[in-house]
């Protein structure tokens, strides 16, 4: 199977997933209590005739499946509905906040990968030594610490006692440092673990021993032969991890009162602003599918064997 067909197939598989989520989301909204028109008017005085007119205009007099397609056709055109609380379009609300969340994810990923890969390489190369033992234990501790508690402790130490960085809200890029650190802590430990495991495995492979036995430069063997192969799963994890980071961002953005999409989700759940909740979950689903597909594609490019192995399943 060629690379292009493979990539195309992977993207096509994502479409029914998104489709399925839209059905579930619509059904949830449909069964939630409350009349959407009354919620939309929010106490405004209007005649029953006007309500009936609005009901028809929004397609609410139609059967469920017609309503679903009506809703879907709006979504496809980028119309995610209107927030009941602020009366602003959901798509606008999300597009204003998404950049903060994506920047936060980017910074925390850069942090967790630079720390994790470095620590993983050191522990793999110094396997069995005191350094390995120490760094590995720090790693286990790091992913046992709840990110939100770590964030609170960072706020307390760097924000309050040392007064080095802002405690909450967004005052500029430096406001993202503490949140990014809180988000990066657990994932850096996972990256380290994976890097170490892969590197140890690769170093035991025949071709590495052959390369060494041939008398090739030790550093060259490590960097060119071992590292390149050991990094494939680590790179893939980069993509598969992105959706999980969005989940972490909800908690961390709420803690640090950042104006991102994660906090918007939290606030909208509290305010029962379901149109916004629906829109954000939909965006997250699309992002999840995109990142997973990218992960599959990157594997296929880096390691052609995988294409054959995983071709059969989903």
């Amino acid at each position, binding site marked *: 199977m060629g690379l292009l067909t493979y990539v195309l197939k992977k993207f096509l598989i994502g479409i029914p997933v998104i489709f399925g989520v839209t059905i579930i989301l619509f059904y949830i909204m449909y069964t939630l209590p409350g009349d959407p028109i009354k919620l939309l008017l929010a106490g405004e005085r209007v005649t029953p005739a006007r309500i009936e007119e609005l009901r028809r205009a929004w397609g609410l007099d139609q059967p469920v499946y017609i309503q679903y397609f009506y809703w879907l056709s709006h979504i496809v055109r980028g119309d995610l509905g209107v927030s009941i609380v602020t009366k602003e379009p959901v798509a606008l609300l999300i597009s204003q906040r998404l950049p903060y969340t994506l920047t936060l994810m980017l910074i925390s990923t850069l942090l967790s990968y630079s720390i994790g890969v470095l620590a993983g390489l050191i522990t793999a190369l110094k396997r069995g030594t005191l350094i390995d033992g120490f760094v590995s234990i720090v790693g286990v*501790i790091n992913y046992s610490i709840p990110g939100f*508690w770590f964030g*609170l402790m960072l706020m*307390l130490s760097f924000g309050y006692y040392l007064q080095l960085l802002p405690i909450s809200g967004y005052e500029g890029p430096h406001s993202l440092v503490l949140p990014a650190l809180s988000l990066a802590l657990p994932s850096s430990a996972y990256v380290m673990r994976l890097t170490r495991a892969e590197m140890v495995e690769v170093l035991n492979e025949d071709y590495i021993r052959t390369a060494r036995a041939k008398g090739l430069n030790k550093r060259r063997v490590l960097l060119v032969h071992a590292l390149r192969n050991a990094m494939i799963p680590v790179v893939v994890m980069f993509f598969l991890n992105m959706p999980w980071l969005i*989940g972490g961002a909800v908690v961390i953005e709420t803690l640090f009162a950042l104006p991102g999409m994660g906090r918007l989700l*939290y606030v909208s759940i509290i305010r029962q602003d379901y149109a916004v909740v629906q829109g954000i979950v939909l965006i997250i689903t699309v992002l*999840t599918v995109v990142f997973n597909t990218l992960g599959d594609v990157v594997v296929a490019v880096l390691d052609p064997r995988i294409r054959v192995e995983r071709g059969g399943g989903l």
Partner: protein
Amino acid sequence: MISLIREKIKSLSSSEEISLFLKHKRGMAGLILLSFMLFIALTADFIAPKRFDEVDPSSRLLPPSTANIFGTDQLGRDVFSRVVFGARIALWVGLLVVVIEAGIGVPLGLVAGYYGGSIDKLISAITDMLWAFPPIILALAIVTILGPGLTNVVIAVSVVSWAPYTRVVRAKTQSIMSREFIIAARAVGESSLSIMFRYVLPNTLSSVIVLATLTIPSAILYTTALSFLGFGAQPPTPDWGAMLNEGKDYIFKAPWCSVFPGLFITLTALSFNLLGDALRDVLDPKLRLG
């Protein structure tokens, strides 16, 4: 199921696995830490100097002292007593989530691995989809529908994170299916159900035990995160996440209200992570969770 576990334990005792485990320093450290947590959870009524909901308006936000070793919170409640009672909730919630996850994931994995074909494809597709999706977001969506509360959070977290059980059990089942004893059981006309539960399941048990130990920490972290956001345990429940939710408003005035609950979440998660890693090294070194 219980008799299966009993048999497994019997076959394990006095075997080399036990002595291997005893030599595993980090595993032993985890076991000791976990025993400590279990001890304070079981004896909370005797250890805690006060009830977890005993309000004392005259001693609000007091720093740690000999009278209140972890200090007091905004209602004058003893933080140490609340943390000790919180251990009960955390361990109970972790166990409950893992049991529900295994209850959903293990049978699905058995069925997928045993039958193969289109059933396997369907189950694997659902599992992969669930695995890819951020669990916190899904759990939040479920809590939005069910409403806040500890029980609902337990349901939400279990329902969104059984995927690893299905993956591991499915792979194990597939590798067992070609073994002689399965072929023999089929040849003598054993029913599929009986083969799955009497012959395949016991062989997946050690992987499931390792997996359960390693997923308890994430179960505790997710449920406390949801309680921290205010969707889980409600006041005055001494849930560690809920305590952090209340404590964060006084983080600068009374940091002890936040420091200790978080520290205990970390220690509990750490104990299971250390123990789980050791169990994996001993029982199932090839197990991969990714």
